[in-house]
Structure formats: C-alpha cells, structure tokens
C-alpha cells in the first residue's frame, strides 16, 4: 500500500500502511503493542499479520525487554507505544537491554509534540529527541512528511541496530515526491537562499518552507534544509550552508533543550559557528490546548520562524547585537 500523496493521510496512518508493506517484505518482523494499537495505528499490522502481533498490555518496561529477547532470537521487533513512554517510562530497558548490545529493534515514538495537544503535558512528548540522542548506538529520525516517514522506515529495516523514529498524529503537507529516499546522516536542501539557513526536522520543516515564503516577500532569501536524520546529523551540509548564509534557525516539534537545536548547535561549534535561533517548545511543559493555539503559544508558526530568521540575520550583521537575553 503506497502512500497517497494527493490526499495526504495523517502520518500515523502512513505509519500503519508502511508497517504492512514492511511486514510483507520481512517475514521476521514482529509488532509489539502496549494497549495503544488503534491510536498508534500499529493496528494495521495487527490486522494484516495477526500471528506476528504481540500485545503486552500496559507495561512499557516489559514491552522493550520482550523486544530485546525477540531480537536475540532473530526477529525484528517494532515495540510501539506513545513517545513519552518510550523515552521516559522504559528508558533503562531501551538503553541497556537494547542499545547497549546494539540489538536490531525499531522503535516508533507515537504522539509527539504539539499535535498530541489536548492530552496535555504528560502525553505531549517534547523530550524524546534529547533523551534518545544521548544513548550510544541509537539512531534518531523525525520525518518531514509521509513519504519521508516511509523512507525512514524502509531504511531503518536495512539498518542493523536500534532506531528511534517519531510518528506524528497529524496531517503534514507534502514535501517529497514518490521516489524519495532516506539515508542516515544525509540532509535535504529544499530551498536555496543566501541570507539565513532554516534547519527543520519533523513537521517543522513544512513550517520552515512557509517561513521562507514570508521572508521572500520581504526580499530575504532563506535556505531551507530538512534534517530528518537527527542522529547522525549531516554536519557537512550544515557547514556548507552556513558558510554561505552566516546564520541559522532550527525548528523542531520538541523542547529546544538538548534536542535537535542542540544537535545543530553542537555541529556549528564543531564546524562553523554562526548565530543560531532555536524554535521549539521553550523549556516549558506542553499543556493541553488546540493544536493551532499551541503552535501559536509556543511561537512555532511560520511567522515566528521568520522573525527568528530576521533576528539571526541581525546578529550576524551586528555582532554587538548578538548579546542574547542572557548577557
């Protein structure tokens, strides 16, 4: 079942469909669920391959431990739960039972960030990028659209070792054509521009594209780079772009502390330091609210990205203006 780019699905449905595709190609793939399959859409796999679907109940520690055991007997497990429960409830199991022995487990983190919205702070996952990135051996990705998610999942299956990828409960605008592929550590230049680079990951890349339009109207050419692969990250492309533009903005559907923005900041410090503005949840709990209201509240909409881009340009032009709020 290929995704239908003309009538975009919610990303979680694209996730479910891709699970079915992969299940056909990999007879040793098994899906595990902790009582959330019709929400996460692991249910697609359950319906297609009931014999390879394992329900563990509401027990996330066990979910990941069992997955380790299945990987050790030759299966490729997809333990599925909400991202908060992967990143927080079962972190020790993911770290030691899975990452440490580098087991072949693919972990989808469902219900990430703002679009989880009304469920509130305990469920609107903002810390998974920071947390998963900190684990040695773990690879981390956040898809920009459904085609990207599908490509990530296909690549994940061909990658030996643990992978964490985010699945959003949201319908994303189409960014990529049908032939789209994904490779670890490779970013995608989506739009060229000379004045500032907008680095997006996950659903925020679409908002970066919209921000670039806003900036273009003001005569500011912004470059947009999509970095679905957060770990490893495309340091070469980052360096190449900021060497031209001289300043950057990151945008992620997550906390700006330690996550994607930090990954770019680390890379910039390593390869080419420039002023950086980070868009995302500003170290607050992501409480309940409507999706758009939350994007607005946390200043994650295209106009906010555009404003951050202007601030970055300003900082580049007048180093004295770089004194941020802290100085």
């Amino acid at each position, binding site marked *: 079942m290929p995704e239908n780019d003309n009538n975009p699905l919610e990303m979680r449905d694209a996730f479910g469909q891709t699970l079915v595709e992969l299940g056909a190609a990999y007879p040793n793939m098994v899906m595990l*669920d902790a*009582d*959330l*399959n*019709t*929400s996460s859409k692991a249910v697609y796999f359950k319906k297609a391959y009931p014999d390879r679907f394992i*329900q*563990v*109940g*509401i*027990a996330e*520690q*066990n979910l990941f431990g069992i997955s380790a055991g299945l990987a050790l007997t030759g299966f490729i497990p997809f333990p599925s739960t909400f991202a*908060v*429960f992967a990143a*927080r*409830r079962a972190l020790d199991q993911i770290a030691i039972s899975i990452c440490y022995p580098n087991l072949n487990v693919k972990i989808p983190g469902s219900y990430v960030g703002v*679009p989880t*919205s*009304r*469920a*509130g*702070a*305990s*469920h609107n996952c903002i810390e998974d990028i920071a947390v998963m990135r900190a684990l040695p051996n773990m690879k981390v990705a956040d898809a920009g659209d459904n085609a990207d998610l599908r490509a990530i999942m296909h690549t994940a299956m061909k990658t030996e070792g643990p992978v964490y990828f985010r699945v959003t409960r949201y319908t994303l605008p189409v960014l990529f054509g049908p032939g789209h592929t994904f490779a670890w550590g490779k970013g995608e230049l989506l739009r060229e521009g000379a004045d500032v680079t907008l680095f997006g990951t996950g659903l925020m890349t679409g908002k970066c594209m919209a921000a670039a339009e806003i900036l273009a109207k003001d005569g500011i050419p912004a470059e947009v780079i999509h970095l679905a692969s957060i770990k490893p990250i495309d340091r070469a492309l980052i360096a190449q772009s900021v060497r031209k533009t001289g300043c950057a903005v990151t945008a992620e559907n997550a906390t700006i502390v330690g996550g994607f923005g930090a990954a770019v900041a680390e890379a910039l410090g390593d390869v080419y330091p420039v002023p950086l503005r980070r868009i995302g949840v500003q170290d607050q709990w992501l*409480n*309940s*609210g*409507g*999706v*758009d*209201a*939350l994007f607005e*509240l946390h200043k994650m909409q295209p106009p906010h990205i555009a404003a951050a881009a202007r601030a970055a340009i300003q900082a580049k032009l007048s180093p004295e203006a770089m004194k941020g709020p802290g100085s």
Partner: protein
Amino acid sequence: MQPTQELSGYLEEMAYQIRRLSVEMITYGKWGHIGGSFSMAELLAVLYFHHMRIDPDAPKWEARDRLVLSKAHGSPALYAALALKGFYPIEAVYTYCELDGIEGHTDMTRTPGLESSGGPLGMGLSVAVGMALGLRFKENAVARVFCILGDGECNEGNVWEAAMSAAHYHLDNLIAIVDYNKVMAKGFVWDLMGIEPFAAKWRAFGWDVIEIDGHDIPAIVQALHEARWVRPAGRPIVIIAHTVKGRGVEMAEFNYKWHTQAPEPAVADRMLRELSRRYGRAEEGYSRLHEDDAKEAFYAGE
C-alpha cells in the same frame, strides 16, 4: 453502615451529575475518556459526597483525606466531582483541554482539589504511599489516602512496587480502589493482558481485600466504612470494585471503542438523553448542542 434512603438518593444524584458533566466536558473539550469516567461515577460520588473528610473552602487543610487518581485519564469524572463539591464553579469544566484551562490529564497546579498530577498509568499508588507515610510521620491517625487505579493499569510494574512497599510499611491508612471495569484501551483485560486471579495478587502482596459491585452505592458506602474503621490491622486495604466500563449509556458499555473518544455534539445529546431516562429524570440533552463551536474537531477519533 447501610446508608439511609435519602443519602443513597443524594449519592445517586451525584453519580448522575458526574456522568452528565463528564459528557459535557468531553464533548465541549473534544477529547477525553468516557468509559473510564462512567465506570467510577458511583465510587467518586460516595467518596466526595459522603466518605472523604475534605473541605472545598480549605482545600489544603492539613488533616484532610487525600485522593490520588492514578488512572488520570478518568479526569473528567474527577473534575466533575470537584466542581459539584464546590472546589470551583461548574462553568470551569468547559475549559477542559483548552489553553490555560483544565488539563486533559490531571495537573494539580491548575485545579483546586487535585492532590497530584498524572497521565502515565501506574504511578499514582507510589504517590499515595508517600502521602500515607507522610501522614504517619505527622502522626495523623485519622486522615486516609485513597488511590483509584484502573484494571489495565495494574499491568504496570510500578503498581506492584508500590503495593509491596505499602504492605512493608503497614500502611493501613492507605485505601486503594481498583475500578475493575474489565476493559482497557483497546480491548478486554483478559484478552490483552490477564490479571486474574486478581484478589490473590493483592493478598500475596500483603493487602487486605474487599470486593464489591462498584455501582452499588450502599455497597460502596459499606466498603469504605469497613476499610476505614473495621479492617485496619497493619495491612493496606484494596477495594476491588467490579464495574462496567461506560456504565450509563448503552453504546459505551463494555465497549473499548468509547475508552477514548469525544462524541459529536449530536451523539452527546443522545447519550445524555438516554442517561436521564435511565435515571428516571426528565429528558435532558447536551447543553451546548447548538453553540457554534469553532474548535477543531481534531480529537474526535481515538
């Protein structure tokens, strides 16, 4: 300790109002868990309107009883009970899931009367153990700590860590109540992850067990009385309340599809009318049926 006819009637009315308000807020907030709110309506009614020593005018009264809703997705029923009890105006429930409103899962920093924050299942009993220990340290012999758990929630290991420690510390000022409604998020408990023999598990973890019909108001009154005044003998007490998930409207009963789902306003209207008929009240539908609602319909599905 049989309640009077009058008391039972009053508590029944409170359970009815808890159900009504749950539907109202879930529909208006466009998100929430009807099944698990309905199944504990009688439990909350008896706790908040008869058994618990609490004062809405002094929500931080030191010697008060405390309730931790471990199955925090059942928040609508609790928010309803707190509103009906007078912790805040009834109107406030219509801010459910709104920015700066009442949080989808429990956030104690936003809602008077809430004793803890939650969302992830399996955590609340530990918090309740901490409170019960804290009360012991303060030599408060009267106050009780209540903790409501889901049956599916009891899959979580954290529950059993807490259970083990409560027995170890002889916390008979701690009363857990399991809303044993036989259904979890995506199916029946026995199908997804069986928990039987359930009472035996609690006993083996050192608890005293009382089993009741969790919709039978006199039985609940009696069980709480017993748990507070008769049973304490150095063991924590669990009330296993056999309930029906979604109890109140037929389409939701024992049906996991109404575990998490906001009804369309028209469906809510039908639900509430059915509810009033069941209770023998004058038929009354959804109060905001015709309100022009600009909110996104995002969470209507599961």
